[in-house]
């Protein structure tokens, strides 16, 4: 009776609580269990009711609780929900435990989201947290080693240079292999948008600290919804949104110091004079190189590295405000980055503002907008390190190593030390004058800048027609304006002959994209879960570039295009448009989260294909089986350790349509003779052209152990690519422009294994060690090529050290074999096409320079006919090992990356040992001098450009590219929340960080990642005259209010 009475009273209390209940007020503080910092915005709800509140900025809350309520529930995204039973105390302090599993729970699949447990495709997700605080210009630079199957190679230290970005290998030969990047629903422009020596990665216009998550769609099941643009994988970026709660303010800032790493040691003035004169003596010529003495008696000894490189100081600041109510969420951020490279005159400056807003107009109708505007200004000298620049005589990377150390940059009167358009020859004989310009003049007088103004915005509305049925329309634009300004001075370098050159070009890239989707999700009988999506999309892009070059400057004062010049000619002209029109859909089904089936389809039309050929169908299907949901598994002893065990597989066909705007058309180019028009056959179009086709198979396994403490993923993948779009060479007598017609011809595959392990290795008291380890093994093989499988040589400027051949992976290193230095004569031994050894001496008359080992004259070695395939230029394994250690308030991150299985052609070494007037590496001290001596460096013969590989690429300059790199080390300290409560700040973390700190490798060059051919597919792993990579030390501060 008493019980019943009590129940009755309680019931009365409930229904009349407003009037009668004896409420009480509970107060408290919510903190993070990890670091003790207060957590603002945590939902505090009286369990079983809708009554609740949120914690304030300093984590405190105050809540009126009805008398009968006994439990409070604390909910916060990224933390495990906690229920606290109320006692008699009016104070409840809660420390919440972060939930690694819930953090990665949802993945963004492009046109929608999916719970990670339900995913049957292969998707790698990287949290924006992992990109935070990195001293990078664009977010993808920080992705190296962060996800299995994703390869990021930083080719050199030029700021904002697009990294070589590959998902599951290089998936095209002649088209772009760069993944499709989708930011908040709009596929954005990528690549280097700069029109001069500045590197202008279009993704540098995104503030990495605005990124909430990056989801990388790797297999066809995941990416097929992107159809003809999915062959290289799709990277879906979601920017941050406000979270329900009071306004949060975050500040992130760092200061960085950036230096060149591992520069090869060069000869000083004395060494230069000694060895060059020795080389002259060896060809019977008297000394021509001499030390130069200044009037004060000091000897000129110029370290051109000091001219070219410096300590770059950078700072970066980002502030954001975010919050949300039930109806409206907002995220507003401002970013400012001012970075100096270690290369003189190289800088990157970005100002960015972003507003993300979502608003619920009614329960059914939602609006939202993501709006970002960026101004990015880059400056750089000609570094000789961007694609196509390697052999530029004004490239700074090259000048720093070839310029003679026994001549000064400046004369004693402060004027530049020059000789015509080249550096002065100091005390040397004028016959050996360098023809390279004085680097100091170029740095002081030349200007290169590239400025981007970029608007990326999406507006959307969605409407819930019925429960589960949602109609969404989204319109996005990506407008990029690039202004490139170049001035080449009249004193030295490329501007010398034309007496000063100013080039201004402007590039306008506009894109709009309109997506309409209808999505439906339902559960039938609570065990059949179905979701479906149908969509229609249009995209229109146009590019317009124009500009001019002016030459012959009227007055030395003039350094700008608008000044007086003699001539003007057009530069940077281009005009193109293309459009997509697509229909797509997907359907996924699961039974009790045990059995999964999904399929997606896209029909893509592309304007650049010929009429009747414009449309193509793409699609993928996948299936999954979550064994851990089976009764027999749950009941077995395995379930105690294995918390998830899922098998999945997928197959699909996607495309690569980066074929340009008008490849189907036969076109005539225009010209003039005076005022008479002229037209020449300029493009042999192919009206039958189609997209490249990539058929992707993926078989995967997801396991997690000990309640998610260890997660293990494994994938086998096989991408077979056919219909490769290639310029098929034509007989030169056919009259076909460029000797080639673009055809769908050729096949290749990428296959391999990916393994990923996330684990909490140690969690003991205040100490916690978590890590991610991932490794990818990949094999690429070209299985057929155009023109009867003819080899595809690929030049790196003036030399060709790569060749693509059927049966091998793309862009094999292709060099003439050498077998060291003949101890008897000090001559380099080459191996000719017949396998016979041939010696070379520059000291003999031209016709007898090449001799067989027996001294008889041999035919000259030919750089193509005597060369052979030497090895892979593409790595066959790579990965990352990321570790976070936390003890109380101290955190330490160690991020390692590794890669290997490839060879690198170290062409720079040919220059470092070239026996013309160029400076040499200090190691020429080991040159051959006496019979019987075993050494790597041949006898020095002045003028010899053959023995060390300048005239033709040789195997002596090829090295293995295996490395292990300590990419990032950071040590942070989080100030305990207790100390901060009075300051108004809710969290403060300070840290010190070193990036690119150590490389373990046998590669002798500056860095095994250095390469000069950018994102090109056919000539990777060529290190020729490039600037190195930098090492950055940063000190940073993160503050939350």
């Amino acid at each position, binding site marked *: 009776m008493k019980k019943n009475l009590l129940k009755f009273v309680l019931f009365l209390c409930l229904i009349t609580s407003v009037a009668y209940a004896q409420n009480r007020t509970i107060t408290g503080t919510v903190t993070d269990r990890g670091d003790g910092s207060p957590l603002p915005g945590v939902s505090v709800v009286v369990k079983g009711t809708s009554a609740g509140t949120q914690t304030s900025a300093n984590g405190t809350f105050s809540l009126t609780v009805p008398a009968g309520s006994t439990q409070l529930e604390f909910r916060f995204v990224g933390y495990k929900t906690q229920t606290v039973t109320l006692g008699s105390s009016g104070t409840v302090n809660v420390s919440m435990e972060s939930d690694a599993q819930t953090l990665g729970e949802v993945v963004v699949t492009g046109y929608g989201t999916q719970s990670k447990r339900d995913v049957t495709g292969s998707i790698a997700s990287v949290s924006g947290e992992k990109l935070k605080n990195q001293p990078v210009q664009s977010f993808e630079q920080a992705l190296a080693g962060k996800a299995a199957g994703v390869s990021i190679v930083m080719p050199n230290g030029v700021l904002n240079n697009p990294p070589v970005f590959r998902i599951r290998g290089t998936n095209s030969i002649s088209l772009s292999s760069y993944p499709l990047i989708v930011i908040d629903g709009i596929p954005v422009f990528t690549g280097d948008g700069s029109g001069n020596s500045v590197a202008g990665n279009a993704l540098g216009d995104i503030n990495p600290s605005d990124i909430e998550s990056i989801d990388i769609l790797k297999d066809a099941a995941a990416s097929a919804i992107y159809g003809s643009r999915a062959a290289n994988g799709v990277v879906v970026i979601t920017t941050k949104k406000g979270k329900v709660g009071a306004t949060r303010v975050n500040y992130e800032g760092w200061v960085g110091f950036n230096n060149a790493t591992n520069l090869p040691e060069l000869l000083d003035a004395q060494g230069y004079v000694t060895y060059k004169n020795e080389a002259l003596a060896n060809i019977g010529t008297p000394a021509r190189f001499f030390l130069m003495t200044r009037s004060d008696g000091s000897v000129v000894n110029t370290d051109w590295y000091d001219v070219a490189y410096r300590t770059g100081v950078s700072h970066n600041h980002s502030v954001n405000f975010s919050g949300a109510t039930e109806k409206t969420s907002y995220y507003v951020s401002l970013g400012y980055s001012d970075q100096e490279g270690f290369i003189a005159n190289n800088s990157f400056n970005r100002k960015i503002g972003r507003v993300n807003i979502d608003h619920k107009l009614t329960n059914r109708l939602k609006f939202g907008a993501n709006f970002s505007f960026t101004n990015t200004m880059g400056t750089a000298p000609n570094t000789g390190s961007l694609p196509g620049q390697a052999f530029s005589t004004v490239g700074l990377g090259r000048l720093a190593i070839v310029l003679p150390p026994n001549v000064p940059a400046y004369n004693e009167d402060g004027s530049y030390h020059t000789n015509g358009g080249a550096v002065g020859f100091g005390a040397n004989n004028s016959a050996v004058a360098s023809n390279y310009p004085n680097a100091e003049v170029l740095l002081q007088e030349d200007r290169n800048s590239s400025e981007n103004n970029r608007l990326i915005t999406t507006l959307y509305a969605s409407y819930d027609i019925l429960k589960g049925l949602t109609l969404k329309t989204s319109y996005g634009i990506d407008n990029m304006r690039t202004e490139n300004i170049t001035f080449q001075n009249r004193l030295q370098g490329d501007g010398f002959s034309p007496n000063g050159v100013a080039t201004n070009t402007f590039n306008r890239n506009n894109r709009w994209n309109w997506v309409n989707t209808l999505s439906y999700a339902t559960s039938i009988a609570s065990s059949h879960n179905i979701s479906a999506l149908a969509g229609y999309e249009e995209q229109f892009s146009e590019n317009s570039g124009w500009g001019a070059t002016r030459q012959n400057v009227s007055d030395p004062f003039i350094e700008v295009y608008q000044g007086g010049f003699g001539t003007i000619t057009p530069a940077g002209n281009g005009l193109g448009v293309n459009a997509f029109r697509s229909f797509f859909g997907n359907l996924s089904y699961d039974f009790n989260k045990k059995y999964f089936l999904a399929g997606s389809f896209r029909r893509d039309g592309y304007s650049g294909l010929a009429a009747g050929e414009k449309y193509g169908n793409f699609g993928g299907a996948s299936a999954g089986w979550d064994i851990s949901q089976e009764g027999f598994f749950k009941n077995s002893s395995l379930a105690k350790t294995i918390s998830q065990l899922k098998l999945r597989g997928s197959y699909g066909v996607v495309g690569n349509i980066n074929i340009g705007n008008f490849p189907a058309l036969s076109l005539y180019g225009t010209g003039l003779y005076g005022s008479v028009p002229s037209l020449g*056959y300029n493009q042999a179009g192919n009206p039958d052209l189609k997209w490249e086709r990539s058929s992707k198979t993926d078989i995967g396994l997801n396991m997690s152990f000990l309640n998610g403490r260890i997660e293990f993923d494994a994938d086998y993948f096989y991408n077979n690519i056919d219909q490769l779009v290639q310029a098929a060479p034509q007989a030169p007598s056919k009259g076909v422009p460029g000797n080639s017609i673009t055809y769908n011809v050729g096949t290749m595959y990428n296959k391999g294994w990916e393994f990923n392990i996330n684990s909490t290795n140690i969690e003991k008291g205040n100490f916690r060690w978590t890590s991610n380890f991932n490794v990818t093994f990949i094999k690429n093989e070209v299985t057929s090529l155009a023109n009867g499988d003819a080899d595809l040589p690929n030049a790196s400027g003036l030399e060709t050290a790569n060749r693509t051949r059927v049966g091998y992976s793309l862009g094999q290193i292709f060099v003439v074999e050498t077998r060291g230095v003949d101890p008897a004569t000090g001559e380099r031994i080459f191996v000719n096409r017949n396998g016979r050894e041939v010696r070379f001496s520059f000291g003999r008359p031209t016709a007898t320079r090449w001799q067989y080992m027996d001294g008889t004259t041999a035919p000259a070695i030919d750089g193509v006919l005597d060369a052979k395939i030497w090895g892979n230029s593409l790595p066959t394994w790579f990965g990352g090992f990321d570790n976070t250690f936390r003890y109380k308030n101290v955190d330490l991150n160690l991020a390692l990356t590794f890669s290997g299985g490839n060879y690198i052609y170290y062409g720079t070494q040919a220059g470092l040992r070239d026996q013309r007037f160029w400076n040499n590496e200090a190691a020429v001290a080991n040159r051959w001098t006496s019979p019987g001596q075993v050494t790597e460096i041949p006898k020095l013969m002045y003028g010899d450009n053959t023995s060390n590989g300048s005239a033709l690429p040789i195997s002596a300059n090829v090295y293995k590219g295996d490395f292990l790199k300590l990419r990032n080390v950071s040590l942070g300290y989080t100030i305990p929340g207790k100390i901060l409560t009075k300051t108004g700040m809710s969290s403060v973390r300070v840290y010190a960080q070193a990036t690119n700190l150590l490389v373990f490798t046998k590669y002798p060059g500056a860095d095994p990642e250095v390469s000069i051919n950018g994102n090109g597919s056919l000539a990777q792993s060529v290190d020729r005259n490039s600037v190195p990579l930098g090492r950055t030390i940063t000190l940073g501060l993160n503050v939350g209010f």
Partner: protein
Amino acid sequence: MNKINKYIALALAFTLAMSSCDKISDFGDTNVDPTRVEKPSTKALLTYAQQQSTGLFSGNQVSNMWAQFISEGPYLTSSGYADALTGTPSYYGMYTNILIQLENIIKFNNAGTSEADPGANGSKNNQIAVARIMKAYVFWKITDRWGDLPYEQALKGNEDITPAFQKQEVIYTSLFKELKEAAAQIDGGLGMQGDIILGGNMAQWRKFAATQRLLMALRMSKVYPNAGQLAATEFAAAMPDAISSNSENITYKYLAGDPNNYNPWYNNYTVSNRNDYAISKTMVDIMQANGTGTDPRLPVYAEVLPGNVIRGLEYGKTLQTNIPNAYSRIGTAMRQQNTPAYIFTYAQVNFAKAEAAKRGWIPGGDATAKLHYDAGIDASLAQYGVADANFKNATGIVYNPATAIQQIATQRWIGLYLDGWEAWNEWKRTGYPTLVPGPNSANPAGIPRRQMYPNSDATTNAENLAAAIAAQGANTVNTRTWWDKP
């Protein structure tokens, strides 16, 4: 609120419906390149072909070295033939930049399409005639360099075909026929438009065709050496219509003030500010080897250095040399923006006639030969603005029946200065003047006698290439072509 929802839902549905019938349903004009042309007028094709043809007779550095007109200074690339031994340059540009445009002119005319509109481009006959003559000219110039070549099966564009090579002899026979037919085809209608060489003067095109036949006939002198044989007959048949005065010289006019149409030597020396070439010592020595110690043309051909010296640079040196102020560059008059280039000259015709008379192909013997030889020297001097009626009588220059062939060849060679391919071909045929490779020669067999088939044929047209090599001889620079008998 519910109403709003309905309207918005309707609006969304409407946009979906609209989007399926919007203007880019077939992408409209999105697939139109705004910067290039799909339907070219034939006159513009001819202008382009003519612009692209200049390397055959002007501005070409390799040929002027092979003829030893010029020497290399700071960069030793071509004077030792090293580049030629690797199969460069290719003849690809001849087919792709020049011949395909001419082929298309003929094609559009025969098809009667709008590209060939006779009102705008010239009468059908005249268009085809000019295109055939130009084509014959280009094929002649390139068969003399490479020998057997793809001819009838060439220029098929996108067609899936690998063109067979044809013998030089067959090509020569066909070219005579083409030139005759084309000249006969010329009618009184509108002349060819867009003709930047002869301005649509169809009578001059007849002379072009005849002059080429005259020179082609002479080229066969070793195959048909005797009077009454094919070469002599063709020569005599071509004579009446050949160029008959300096005013009829066929030139290519470069344009002052038009950077895209500057004389290539102006581009090299002035625009690019290079000093890579000097007149060769061979040239200077020969032009000075007469009683006067000079030749009125020499100060035109070569830069006069301070001290009134003309110093030629030794041909084919092994050491790099700086040229400015040490050696005479090409004369400034020869490298102005608008310095013209000569395709056919009256001097050339005269030397041809002199040789034909000496050989007995045409009547008159030494007397006629001397007449033409003298006229040739006079014409050449006048052509360079240094007319001097006495020079033809200078020591060693004056016609000598005993050395006539050598003298004619030497004067022809001097007159062809900077027309390297023609001079080299005539040197191959006559052996005069005596040229020897420089010390830096990478070709032990001497001066190349042909250019190698490009490497690209080995990969794109291998079978036909193999057949051509089997027929003509090894693909080396030393294999002699059909007319080039030892």
